[in-house]
């Protein structure tokens, strides 16, 4: 299974010089368009959504983007993924002929797994054992991309783990399903017993640890079971108060904005976050108020703002 080079810039439709803000905006636009809950053709949308997320995982992170840019430039000369990775691209120091593992179905491409997963995904290296002694196989680690909808309702994911023996070159692929429990939080590890490296000389196999990564959502971010949403407001909505529709993981709700709300203020809606285990309890939903100003204004609007300037007793710098 060779992995073609993926042009993450093309996936997100941005130039190689794009600013972090441009990348974020483009991701949000595309993720909203191809979100499986919104698109008509769910199967192809899900595939596209994962591609967009994968590209954002790399380009949205300055360090990963730097590595990707460095490696991407000499890609054609690198000879594919058969060779050894560059010295600073993971692999735990200490040597040993490490068996290579590649994942399928986790939502990250082989490329991502191989070079950005970091040292820990290979567990600790083989080696150090004397021959003939039975030994348990190493644990294997990888990341798994979980959408917030999966984190909300749980689900089954098909994972394939392909391992290559460094001595014989023999390739084995093992496919199985892993249940994603509802309420699984970002950073949590799912332990899959016995799905790590095979044991040696009759030893037991190691375990597979899948570290959950919440797929970046166009609207929401998470912290544990709490869900956060940046809610754009007009200045008068913040000053006068308003009732505005707000999307949540359960659909639209009406949120009352109190008069005199401030920029960055958080309004909490209890129990509208992700589930907390099997207890039935849920985290909270937080709307983070983002007061925005109009980009361009009409003559009539200008007159009204000017009138406000002359009559307003509000002097934001007076109390300093």
């Amino acid at each position: 299974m060779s992995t073609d080079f993926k042009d993450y810039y093309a996936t997100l439709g941005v130039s190689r010089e794009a600013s972090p803000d441009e990348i974020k905006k483009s991701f949000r636009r595309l993720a909203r368009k191809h979100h499986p809950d919104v698109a008509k053709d769910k199967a192809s949308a899900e595939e596209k959504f994962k591609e967009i997320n994968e590209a954002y995982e790399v380009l949205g992170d300055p360090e990963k983007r730097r590595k990707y840019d460095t490696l991407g430039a000499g890609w054609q000369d690198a000879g594919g993924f058969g060779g050894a990775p560059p010295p600073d691209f993971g692999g735990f120091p200490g040597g040993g002929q490490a068996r290579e593992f590649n994942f399928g179905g986790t939502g990250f491409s082989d490329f991502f797994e191989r070079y950005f997963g970091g040292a820990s995904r290979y567990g600790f290296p083989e080696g150090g054992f004397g021959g003939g002694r039975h030994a348990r196989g190493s644990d294997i680690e990888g990341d798994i991309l979980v959408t917030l909808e999966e984190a909300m309702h749980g689900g089954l994911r098909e994972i394939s783990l392909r391992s290559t023996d460094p001595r014989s070159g023999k390739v084995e692929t093992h496919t199985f399903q892993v249940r994603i429990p509802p309420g699984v939080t970002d950073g949590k590890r799912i332990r899959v017993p016995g799905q790590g490296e095979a044991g040696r000389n009759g030893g037991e196999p190691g375990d597979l640890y899948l570290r959950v990564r919440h797929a970046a959502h166009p609207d929401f971010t998470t912290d544990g079971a709490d869900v956060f949403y940046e809610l754009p407001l007009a200045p008068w909505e913040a000053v006068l108060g308003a009732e505005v529709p707000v999307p949540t993981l359960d659909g639209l709700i009406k949120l009352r904005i109190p008069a005199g709300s401030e920029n960055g203020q958080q309004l909490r809606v209890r129990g509208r976050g992700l589930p907390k285990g099997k207890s039935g309890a849920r985290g909270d939903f937080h709307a983070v108020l983002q007061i925005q100003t109009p980009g361009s204004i009409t003559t009539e609007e200008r007159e009204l703002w000017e009138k406000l300037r002359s009559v307003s007793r509000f002097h934001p710098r007076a109390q300093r």
Partner: protein
Amino acid sequence: MNDPLPIHDPGDGGTYSLEVAARITGLSSETIVHYQEGGLLGPSRTDAPIDDESLRTLRRIGHLRDAVGVNEPGIRLILELARELETLRDQMRAGF
């Protein structure tokens, strides 16, 4: 469901008795308690039940000790550095 693929259910926040943890990790119960009380499983885990995260750390400790030949102060240092690295990577991932 007719799907022939085996399904692995990770359970939900399960914890393990010392005996089960010993069997899974290949370490003795006394050794596990020693590492736990010594804070090697993490500063907040000295008297917490053993969960999947603790099992993972115990497996790493066992591997460092037996396969790589690192002593306890060395293991402590490696685990602290690994945790710090993970935290920094998470912060980097979230900080854009």
